[in-house]
């Protein structure tokens, strides 16, 4: 059975990737510390800002922290699974990408499983503490349904963000270098998710809903969980988050495969 074979292989490759990373313990620990510090810094900024204004577009500090934590949590999983794609251009530049093409397995899968970035403990630590705190403050009633919805939303968020990483990496098949696209697309898109979309101009809201669907990573689902209103969009839009994730990821996979076909005929 092909799928079972790939799952077994995935775990073997991933565990090798983890052991390889643990060879550099100091870098590993420092990355975790760095991440926690950076996210706490952003959260403190929010607090300071809201201390002045009380609310931002009808969102109070705890609601915003929930929104932020959800973004960080799915980003954490996304790093584990897909962050390796950010270095695809280096592989192509060095010519080391060829090795993925002389093996009898799907190169997308092989490349994805090569590295498993476990340094996202920082993201988990931060977001879980934030979730617990916010849940207590806002007295969120975590029913089974809500928990399942949250899990589905995280899957959707991982696929959306991972999908964008994959698309950005695929540019390397055409342009050889793709690092700059990360800063042009991924970085701003992720920063938008730190604040409720409602505070942005309508055009940006529309783009993050239908073009680069980062609104579905955290904003739309959060409005469902916290029962908030979504001006300009129907209130139930957040429920589509997992579906949007799957569709977006499939599209990004197809783009990547298209790029691979081009690579094979240019071989830059």
């Amino acid at each position, binding site marked *: 059975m092909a799928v079972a074979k790939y799952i077994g*292989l995935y775990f*073997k490759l991933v565990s090798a990737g983890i052991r*390889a990373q643990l060879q550099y313990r100091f870098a590993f620990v420092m990355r975790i510390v760095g991440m926690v510090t950076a996210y706490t810094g952003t959260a403190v900024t929010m607090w300071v800002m809201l201390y002045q204004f009380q609310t931002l577009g009808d969102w109070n500090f705890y609601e915003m922290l929930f929104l932020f934590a959800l973004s960080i949590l799915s980003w954490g999983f996304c790093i584990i699974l897909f962050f390796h794609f950010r270095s695809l251009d280096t592989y192509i530049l060095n010519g080391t990408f060829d*090795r993925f*093409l*002389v093996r*009898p*397995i799907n190169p997308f899968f092989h490349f994805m499983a090569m590295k498993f970035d476990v340094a996202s403990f920082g993201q988990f630590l931060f977001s879980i503490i934030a979730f617990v705190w916010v849940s207590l403050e806002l007295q969120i009633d975590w029913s089974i349904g809500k928990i399942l919805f949250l899990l589905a939303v995280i899957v959707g968020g991982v696929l959306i963000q991972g999908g964008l990483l994959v698309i950005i990496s695929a540019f390397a098949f055409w342009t050889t270098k793709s690092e700059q696209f990360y800063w042009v697309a991924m970085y701003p898109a992720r920063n938008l998710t730190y604040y409720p979309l409602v505070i942005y101009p309508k055009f940006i809201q529309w783009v993050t809903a239908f073009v680069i669907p980062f609104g579905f990573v955290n904003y739309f689902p959060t409005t469902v969980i916290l029962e908030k209103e979504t001006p300009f969009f129907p209130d139930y839009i957040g429920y589509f988050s997992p579906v949007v994730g799957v569709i977006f990821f499939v599209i990004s996979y197809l783009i990547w495969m298209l790029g691979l076909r081009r690579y094979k005929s240019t*071989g830059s």
Partner: protein
Amino acid sequence: MSIIEVNGLQKEFLIAKRETGFMGALRSLVKREFIKKEAVKDISFTIEKGEMVGYIGPNGAGKSTTIKMLTGILVPSAGNVLVNGIIPYENRQENAKNIGVVFGQRTQLWWDLPTIESFELLKAIYRVPDQRYKENMDIFKEILGLDEFLNTPVRQLSLGQRMRADIGASLLHDPPILFLDEPTIGLDVVAKEKMRTFIQEINRERNVTVILTTHDMEDIEKLCKRMVLIDHGQKVYDGEILAVKERFGKMRTLVVDLEEAQKPLYVSGGEICKQEGNRRWIRFNRDEISASELITQISQTHNITDLTVEEPDIESIISRIYQEGFTEPQFV
């Protein structure tokens, strides 16, 4: 049916034209012009099962491009490739099962992990049965001496060790065809010799077909009976190494040290091609005059203090083929 069939193979690349200077760079940002480069113009050959073929050419001749098309990494612009009955670029994963690839400059092993782990991962990737894995590992340990470094991380291996590990890794799944791209590059003399012995053994005992690209002429001389010589994307020569040596190897050089060097030296049947102090280099064709005749001739006018006869090595022969072209001998 031959194990590898290449027919009228072509590959063109479009390369962005870079203009010089700052303004040029700005201009090429806005409007890019492309130059068509034909890396492989028209190459055909067939290789039989169990053959060991040297694929040789200067840098940029199209060696790597050809190998990449045979391994399925690149799609040809025109022409046909058939490797073990499979079209590599259409059926890359199927083709991967039939081939082992070693790129001398880049390892395919997991850089940060103990060497043995790379073998186990490749076992899982190629789905090598346990029994076969064990047998192969035993053989590799013996002839490649893998034992001494199996638990060392790949990044700490010496180049020779890494190459041995890479070759072992490429043969783990018993491929009938092995591509070696510069397998001895950067190795010291002892390691080179070891590597050659191993390649020979693999070829002989498992009947593995080997295609070898290299800059090291000794590799070719010692390993291959046949060589395919390419230049500017075209085949210059395809045939036995011996035949080349026969044809171009008739020229010998006699090196003599003379006592009275200031006295002019005239030789008939040979040509003085170089002189340095008391030493003279005389080139001659072995079919026209023998070395002893030449020596007798010289010793009539000069006292010879020392002499050697140099045979041409394949390297100088090939550089002559590049310069003069290889025209087929009129009679063989």
